[in-house]
């Protein structure tokens, strides 16, 4: 055993060595993420084969072989079906979507009056965009304009009939316009109704509590089509003879009732998460019930459940497509209706039309869900590790 000089202490940092070759670079990434075990490698190969089989077909159908322009069905028929395209051709018939685009967007709304829809759409975007950006100023004014003033302006612009605009009856409305109108009204009405119902369900007054529970559970227990069916067929029986509701209005009532029950449950979740101390604190300050709820509890509870609220919105947006079952023509309804047009009847029409509708719905829903995730991250400051 030899004695070492143990008083030696290293005075400068050792030079950092680069990571081993096997741990960096594309090869390592591949090995770690795709071929870590034999099973994984086999799965990767299978998945690759699947993608290689599917992707070219999809791209070819949707883009490379697709027909983009054409006057009628012959543009989308191949030689065997009596059209100009080579035999065996199969591709999307976007010409159909192009020809019907106006209808898909606004239904049979008179062409000369369509500027009103575009104006409403611009107003909607101008008011909504700053509301969604957390840093934009004038939030309160903006919210008032969007939730309280905009509905009336939009009502006037879209329906007309007074102040110099001609009346456009709702049976002429259709397409994305109806989808957006129903979702917007559903969102704007279900939030306050949902808050009231959630408060009712947690109320200490037995009658209020019972009524809220019965309403929420009944509506949540039956499918939306049954609620729409009721709104559509029973409502006219409930009012005096001669009084009649617009069909769109009936659908709106149905959707609003339905979504407020779901909203109530989401908000109740938020209310339950607020510690008892907050309620007691508010009581000790001498606040009344509505002050306590409005100033202390609700702002915290709503903030907690923003993701849930947005998810309910997404659900509602998708659910608007069900009005097709009560013979109303929202985006999906009007696409379905146009599939019956014999001028465009080809084997590819149905697929093209439905995929177009799917893409539109997807863009809206995906956008909303991404925004909700963004808000979740922004608000979720307390729990991050």
């Amino acid at each position, binding site marked *: 055993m030899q004695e070492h000089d143990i008083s030696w202490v290293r005075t400068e940092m050792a030079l950092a060595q680069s990571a081993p070759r096997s741990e960096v670079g594309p090869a390592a990434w591949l090995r*770690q*993420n*795709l071929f*870590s075990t034999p099973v*994984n490698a086999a*799965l*990767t190969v299978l*998945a*690759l084969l*699947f*993608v290689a089989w599917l992707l070219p077909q999809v791209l070819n159908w949707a883009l490379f072989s697709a027909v983009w322009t054409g006057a009628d069905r012959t543009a989308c028929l191949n030689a065997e079906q009596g059209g100009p395209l080579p035999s065996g051709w199969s591709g999307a018939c976007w010409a159909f979507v192009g020809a019907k685009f106006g209808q898909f967007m606004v239904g049979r709304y008179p062409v000369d009056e369509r500027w009103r829809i575009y104006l409403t759409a611009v107003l909607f975007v101008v008011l909504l965009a700053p509301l969604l950006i957390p840093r934009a100023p004038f939030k309160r004014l903006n919210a008032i304009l969007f939730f309280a003033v905009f509905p009336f302006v939009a009502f006037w612009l879209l329906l007309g009939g007074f102040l110099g605009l001609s009346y456009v009856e709702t049976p002429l409305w259709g397409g994305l316009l109806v989808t957006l109108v129903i979702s917007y009204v559903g969102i704007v009405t279900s939030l306050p109704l949902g808050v009231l119902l959630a408060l009712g369900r947690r109320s*200490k*007054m*037995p*009658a*209020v509590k019972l*009524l809220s529970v019965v309403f929420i*559970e*009944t509506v*949540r*227990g*039956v*499918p*939306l*089509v*049954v609620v729409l*069916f*009721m709104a559509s*067929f*029973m409502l*006219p*029986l*409930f*009012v*005096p*003879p001669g009084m009649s509701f617009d069909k769109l209005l009936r659908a709106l009532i149905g959707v609003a009732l339905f979504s407020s029950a779901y909203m109530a449950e989401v908000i109740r979740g938020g209310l339950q998460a607020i510690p008892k101390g907050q309620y007691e604190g508010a009581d000790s300050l001498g606040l009344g019930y509505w002050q306590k709820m409005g100033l202390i509890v609700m702002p915290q509870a709503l903030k907690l459940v923003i993701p849930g609220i947005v998810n309910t919105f*997404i659900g509602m947006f*998708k*659910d608007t*497509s*069900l009005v*097709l*079952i009560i013979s109303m023509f929202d985006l*999906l309804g009007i696409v*379905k209706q146009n599939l019956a047009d014999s001028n465009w009847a080809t*084997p590819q029409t*149905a*697929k093209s039309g*439905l*995929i177009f*509708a*799917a893409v539109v*719905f*997807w863009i809206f*829903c*995906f956008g909303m*869900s991404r925004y909700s995730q963004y808000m979740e991250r922004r608000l979720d400051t307390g729990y991050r590790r």
Partner: protein
Amino acid sequence: MALQDAARPGGSERASWFYDPKVRGIVFQLVLLAVLALCLWWIVDNTIENLRRSNISTGFAFLRGRSGFDISDRLIDYSSDSTYGRALVVGMLNTVLVAASGIVTATILGFLIGVLRLSNNWLLRKLATVYVEIFRNIPPLLVIFFLYVGVLSLLPLPRDSYVLPFGSYLNSRGFYFPRFVWGDGSWLVAAGLGLGVVFSYFVARWARARQMATGQQFPVFRTSVLLILGLPLLGLAAAGFPLTIDFPQAGTFNMTGGFNVKPEFMSLYLALSIYTAAFIAEIVRAGIQGVPRGQTEAYSALGLRPRQGMRLVVIPQAMRIIIPPLTSQYLNLTKNSSLAVAIGFPDLYAIGGTILNQTGQAIEIVVIFGVIYLSISLLTSLFMNWFNAKMALRER
């Protein structure tokens, strides 16, 4: 403040009853009930008036009337001579069938994709994400339409059916496969199955008790499979194989014989499964991620392999997070089954609508819808709550 106090003459100890929250609460509730009763009375009065004016009878007597229409998908005997009541039962069973099979498939698919979302294989993870993001963000009705159009346009006419193994065929009229026709003595098979299930239950109980006591494990799963499959087979042999197989054959128009799953059912069932699986996948992912990392580290420290650890440590804990949202997905799937009406599958809603059209009993039909859908929802919730209670954390 002082001024105000001074202004109050007498300065009574108790505030006026007007400010007593209890009294206010009671008055408010009374007023609310009165308003509701008034509304209700108004609605009922109008409805009676409207019904009287258009000469519509009320009551559920119509359920005993002859329906007169045929239903192609049915689980029980039914013909156009059956009653409206029976037609509704046929519809209800169809709803339950589609919901139950959809729930099973959606759960399996959803768990698979949820686990893939957390896989350490980058490609599979991305594919699962694409699946979830596509199907979560389009309306279920669109998925149903798309599958229906796809099914109808891809499948050939009956005369050039795809021939599948085991005497099955696939064509635009549906999926045909052989049907077992049970002869005399088949009760032995059923009895074997019953016994197998009962035995497996007791074996599982015994094995658990033994493991608790001694720590020794017993291959419960393999034993159960053997029991549940073996005993019926034994019964079959004992009865002398009273089994004939009815193969589908080509008829003039359609295949005859065998068992036929119609395209309407297929597309509805597939669409509901695919759509709901996307949501279940997200729930499963969140559930597994919700189990603290320490648990994974702990089972590794105990020397469990990842697969064992997943099964014995992570999944049981994740289930507690998963079950409540899973329940609401099951309820959603059941409710979405009413979209069957759009592609002509005779579920409860579709048949109820037809009956409404023939009899004009709008209110009664809506009441029936409400009662049946609510009961189905309630039963599903009850079952899931029981399951949830079983899986809940048991503190010792």
